[in-house]
């Protein structure tokens, strides 16, 4: 491969028709059932989904660590190994990856030395907020500290594509905020970032685009705000004695209505529209609250839509396994 990526690449990341199954004592587990994703250079994309959605499996295939059963991956027009060989890829995987018997600075320096155009070690330590523990041995770090060191190891490579698998899992609130502040500095340099998370807030705040995965499929893909509207079903709660339920259900943007004593709860696909219509029509409504529904409920709603056509016979990408299979597949439990 002679192409050397001095300037930001023009073609991005393509995942086409990816599928992957694992054997298990209870029959095959379809971790990924046909994923097509196209990411432009410079985008920051969140892979959002609950445990077992196929996020880690997808990332492993994207990085060439796991061969897909079918489908292809190209990174900047190259295969994953080719892209990795040019130093275009940096990654923070889910587990471990802190080598013993070195200090933090030595580890970061060693990793940087493997890449053609690494960041300076001091700059990396500074960015990751670990300058103060630079001399500490890597096996004497707290969980949050080693998470930052792992981030530094990924960042020092100064890659065109940075892949992060649940990067903030062991971090407290403050560390999480610092982490994303660092990420902003990094993405402002025109880098492509793909990160997996199961926090909607994180995906919403830091990604340009959210790809929602559930049971090994892409169930939604779009700008963060749009996905949040889809996923983030809102509810309007109001005190409204003797309410006319059918009239409330007929309001624009309302999907259904529940009552709790004197209160009504409107589940809305468009809470703004519903609220505009509610106020003039029901002037008695008071104590009005608008709130977002949790991500878990949203997932349940999105994924329950395509559960009706289950058949667990095929390994092909259209074959639907029973829900329990995907649900039982905790990311941490998947081996070969």
């Amino acid at each position, binding site marked *: 491969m002679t192409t050397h990526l001095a300037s930001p690449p023009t073609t991005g990341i393509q995942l086409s028709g990816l599928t992957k199954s694992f054997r298990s004592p209870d029959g095959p587990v379809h971790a990924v059932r046909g994923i097509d994703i196209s990411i432009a250079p410079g985008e920051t994309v969140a892979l959002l989904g609950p445990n077992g959605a196929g996020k880690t499996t997808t990332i492993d295939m994207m990085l*060439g660590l796991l061969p897909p059963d079918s489908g292809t991956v190209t990174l900047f027009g190259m295969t994953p190994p080719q892209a990795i060989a040019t130093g275009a890829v940096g990654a923070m*995987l889910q587990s471990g990856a802190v080598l013993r018997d*070195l200090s933090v600075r030595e580890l970061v320096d060693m990793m940087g*030395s*493997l*890449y*053609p155009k690494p960041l300076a070690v001091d700059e990396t330590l500074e960015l990751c907020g670990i300058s103060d523990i630079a001399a500490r041995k890597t096996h004497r770090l707290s969980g949050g500290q080693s998470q930052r060191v792992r981030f530094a190891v990924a960042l020092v490579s100064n890659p065109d594509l940075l892949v992060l698998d649940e990067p903030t899992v062991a971090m407290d609130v403050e560390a999480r905020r610092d982490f994303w502040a660092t990420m902003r500095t990094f993405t402002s340099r025109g880098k492509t970032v793909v990160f997996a998370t199961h926090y909607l807030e994180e995906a919403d705040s830091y990604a340009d685009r959210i790809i929602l995965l559930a049971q090994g499929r892409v169930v939604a893909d779009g700008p963060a705000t749009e996905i949040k509207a889809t996923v983030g079903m809102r509810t309007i709660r109001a005190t409204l004695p003797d309410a006319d339920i059918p009239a409330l259900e007929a309001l624009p943007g309302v999907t259904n209505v529940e009552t709790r004593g004197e209160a009504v709860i409107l589940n809305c696909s468009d809470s703004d529209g519903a609220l505009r219509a509610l106020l003039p029509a029901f002037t008695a409504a008071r104590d009005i609250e608008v709130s977002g529904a949790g991500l878990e409920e949203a997932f349940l709603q999105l994924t329950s839509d395509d559960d009706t056509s289950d058949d667990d016979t095929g390994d092909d990408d259209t074959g639907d396994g029973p829900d329990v299979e995907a649900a039982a597949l905790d990311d941490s439990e998947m*081996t070969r």
Partner: protein
Amino acid sequence: MNATYVRYELLRLSRNKRFFFFSLGFPLVLYLVIAGSNKKQVLDMGSFSLKFPLYYMVGMASYGAMIAAIAGGARIAAERSTGWNRQLRLTPLRPSVYFGTKVFTSYLMALISIALLYVAGISYGVSIELARWFEMTGLILIGLAPFVALGVLAGHLLTVDSMGPALGGGSAFFGFLGGQWFPLPNHGFLHVLGECIPSYWLTQASHVGIGGNAWGITGWIVIGVWTAAASVLAAWAYRRDTQRV
């Protein structure tokens, strides 16, 4: 070669005190104690006689070097268990450099083990012609090649938990069948089996120091075949070893 990477590998090696102690200290202490308590003993080998410290030194040199070479695998297994190996694969580090560094550090450990035993032997009054020292050492280093490869293979195939028994069992198997523990009969099934095992030739290499002959064609073939087979298997194990451990 990436000098920074190799330098840090060596630094890590030097900081792993327990690894140092058990792979280098064990044969050395064994030698100092056993040869030290039999310093004056002379072994009657039929047509010639041998001073015990010399006989035991060459035997321990080949056994200790073998253990040091195989033990490189334990380090690999430990690195894999933290997911480090997966991380390393996402860097532009070429597999040839990765393997080269592992082979280099294994050989370095073996060489230190041999040197320590030579020094201990000399302190017990062992003397060998200079040319024989070199011939013996050179042959031992060549004979280590299959064991270095077997170590890398085991490191990529086994987990940290299974590494202990595997190393113990492996070195006992090779130590016994190779005649490193005690001499094997000169004929019969055990002898024929021994000749097919690389540790037998490692023992023969060490016997150059006590007047034995260098390998004949059989020795070169056995060492060559084992090295090639173990290297191919090690490369295969490395390639398939991309998944979470």
